[in-house]
């Protein structure tokens, strides 16, 4: 009988938000299944996370090994390959760790891989029916995955509501790995980016520009609006990639997490990596594409060319 596993990411003794989201995702595959949490790491932090997970998962599989003190995907893969059998299904978060681990794990366990899953419709025989998005959320797709030889499924963080019921009363089982845990890739250190000229997380109002700003020179148009409003300019990732603004101004999963009173999304499409950095506040979106996904999450929307709209808004605010 196939088993369902969820891989638990954790840091400093605390499980990641995705830990309980994967429990919800697993229930969408098989509502009655007993789901096993796999927790790897080392020492007291690991014990803490395992205890925490036993409240939510019936079975917690603990792998305590010095070599896994830092989550190196290559090493963790070796451990998982020993645990996963035939048609078992493994759920991973589709974050920077899941992207590192999932594809290779699918090859080594000879099971198919589906990633960035936003919803699970259910199982029909040996076919798992999934929902994904393409083109940064502009369109959705139905995807089928043949699970007769198991599956590795990367679930997008934040799409499944965390199962907070904590009613499992589960137990922790320890297991060890027999494989040689040396790796071709060795973790050295984590480098924290330098603080920038402004701290966008401290601002109540953000005028945030995306690729719709089109040109480096146009950043000034956004700066003028921000000045008129008493706001700070932040941005989406492509603006930082192009080196038009400093990384410290980037909002999103690989940038800053912000919680302003008002967030003005100017020429931003609304990708999940961008939205992942916005934790509340009133959102106003201006975009020339009436179907831009950002309008699904914004409170107020305007269909307009930001290069024309922003100067007019700046002028009107100046006249107040």
């Amino acid at each position, binding site marked *: 009988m196939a088993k369902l596993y969820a891989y638990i990411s954790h840091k400093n003794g605390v499980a990641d938000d995705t830990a309980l989201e994967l429990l919800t995702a697993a229930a969408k595959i098989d509502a009655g299944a007993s789901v096993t949490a796999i927790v790897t790491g080392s020492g007291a932090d690991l014990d803490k996370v395992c205890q925490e997970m036993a409240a939510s998962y019936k079975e917690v599989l603990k792998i305590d090994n010095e070599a896994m003190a830092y989550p190196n995907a290559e090493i963790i893969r070796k451990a998982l390959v020993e645990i996963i059998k035939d048609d078992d299904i493994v759920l991973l978060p589709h974050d*920077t760790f899941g*992207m*590192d681990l999932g594809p290779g794990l699918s090859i080594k366990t000879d099971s198919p891989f589906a990633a960035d899953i936003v919803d699970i419709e259910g199982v029909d025989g040996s076919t798992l029916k999934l929902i994904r998005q393409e083109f940064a959320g502009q369109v959705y797709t139905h995807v089928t995955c043949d699970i007769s030889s198991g599956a590795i499924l990367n679930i997008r963080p934040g799409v499944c509501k965390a199962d907070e019921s904590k009613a499992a009363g589960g137990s922790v089982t320890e297991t060890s790995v027999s494989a040689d845990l040396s790796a071709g890739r060795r973790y050295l250190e984590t480098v924290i980016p330098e603080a920038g000229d402004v701290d966008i997380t401290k601002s109540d109002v953000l005028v945030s520009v995306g690729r719709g700003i089109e040109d480096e020179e146009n950043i000034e148009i956004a700066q003028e609006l921000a000045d008129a409003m008493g706001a700070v300019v932040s941005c989406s990732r492509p603006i930082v990639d192009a080196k038009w603004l400093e990384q410290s101004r980037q909002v999103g999963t690989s940038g800053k997490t912000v919680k302003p009173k008002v967030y003005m999304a100017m020429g931003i499409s609304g990708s999940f990596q961008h939205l992942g950095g916005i934790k509340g506040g009133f959102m106003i979106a201006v975009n020339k594409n009436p179907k831009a996904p950002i309008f699904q999450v914004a409170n107020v929307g305007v269909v307009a060319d930001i290069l024309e709209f922003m100067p007019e808004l700046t002028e009107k605010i100046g006249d107040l």
Partner: protein
Amino acid sequence: MEILVCIKRVPDNEENEIELNSAGNDIDRDDLVYSVNEWDNYAVEEAIQIVDNVGGSVTVVSIGDEEVDEVLRREMAMGAEKGIMLTDDAFEGSDGKGIATILKGVVEKGNYDLIMTGAQADEGYAQIGGMLAAMMDVPFASLVNKIEVGDKTLKIGREIEGGNQEMNEIDLPCVLSIQTGINEPRYVGIRGIRKVASVEIPEFGASDLGIDAGTIGEAAAKVKRVDYFMPDLGDGAEMLEGSTEEIIDKLIEILKANGGLS
């Protein structure tokens, strides 16, 4: 250093608004503008910079029909010495594993120290590099945003959550998937593309690569896109309508009410 960069021709997200077609089962493919996948372009630039520093050559490879010729030449105009086109009816309908299997075939025909892919492409699976590395039993790193070349190893940075950078040492040969922002890809003009217009690009099919046709293509694919659709997403934002003046007046009221003007 001999570097192979795997590139894909995709609908350009920057140039197109992607919408459903009138039948509602596919995207509207009329007038779509295609280009090289954004992530791949950063990978090619990085490969060229490495070769500029330590010597060697860059080869770009793409799977597809005649249409990929254009993106291969664009990347060759940037400075990739060689291009390879992988084309065969048997490749059609491959899932990620099928694509990685095909690429493994071309990797084995060469003698590469480093293989690069983009971190992800239009479909957003972020899978090819990791699968290829596992099939070849070489180390892999995803989301690479820094590379320093050492002796038989590389020192690489991976982008992780919060913009932090995870530094690793990785043995060569290896596969890296490259994240945007790692460099500033050079501009390619018409003249550059003209210069490589007559360079011969070899083409290989499944049998040239020694690939068992049963392991690729539609029949072998276990992960399949059934259709495109738009769910009912509810109401979404309150859209402000009217003349620009009216919209701005309303917006200023809304800003005031929500603490957006100080």
